């Protein structure tokens, strides 16, 4: 069964450093999402792509976060510089239509 792949699974970094997360969606899924899930909270949408275009990035803190999906397949989410409050699980999801399929996430700890 096809799955959304994410790497790394865990990342520890110091504040002010740059971090990057990678997502490979299920083949053929045109829509890709990045979410942030703080411990004890539900996921919050950061950015939504349709193919290579950003559809919604209204909740992405653009002063430090960036996301790209250059060829409309895999995607990278970057944080620079990382802050203590960025410690969270970063989830990637993809969908062919309505149903979103989530990857296992990248757990980020900023020290």
């Amino acid at each position, binding site marked *: 069964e096809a799955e*959304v792949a994410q790497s790394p699974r865990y990342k520890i970094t110091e504040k002010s450093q740059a971090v990057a997360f990678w997502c490979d969606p299920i083949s053929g899924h045109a*829509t890709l999402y990045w979410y942030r899930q703080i411990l*004890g*909270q*539900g*996921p*919050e*949408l950061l950015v*939504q792509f349709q193919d290579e275009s950003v559809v*919604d990035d209204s909740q992405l803190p653009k002063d430090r976060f960036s996301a790209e999906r250059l060829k409309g397949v895999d995607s990278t989410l970057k944080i620079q510089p990382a802050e203590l409050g960025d410690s969270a699980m970063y*989830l990637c*999801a993809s*969908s062919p239509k*309505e*149903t*979103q*399929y*989530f*990857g*296992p*996430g990248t*757990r980020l700890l900023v020290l």
Partner: protein
Amino acid sequence: QKEVEQDPGPLSVPEGAIVSLNCTYSNSAFQYFMWYRQYSRKGPELLMYTYSSGNKEDGRFTAQVDKSSKYISLFIRDSQPSDSATYLCATDRYGNNRLAFGKGNQVVVIP
């Protein structure tokens, strides 16, 4: 006001009991509602998807939407230890695939 409110308190039940989970939502225009299950250190997986009002049943799981009170519910019958997970309610708000999640309920089924 958050779009979806879910009392995040943990819930422990004995094996075989009925689990009852609830959420409220803010806008009567919302039409699409989901329940996701999230095991520890994993991404959420879609459990139930309902449109508008009424009940939907899938095996031991029943999802209910009461539009008059803006209330959504999930019932798990004959609960099993493998049902131990966090359950997240979500709405697709306006059918544009941008989900808003509740905080989640951690459910523990005790053998």
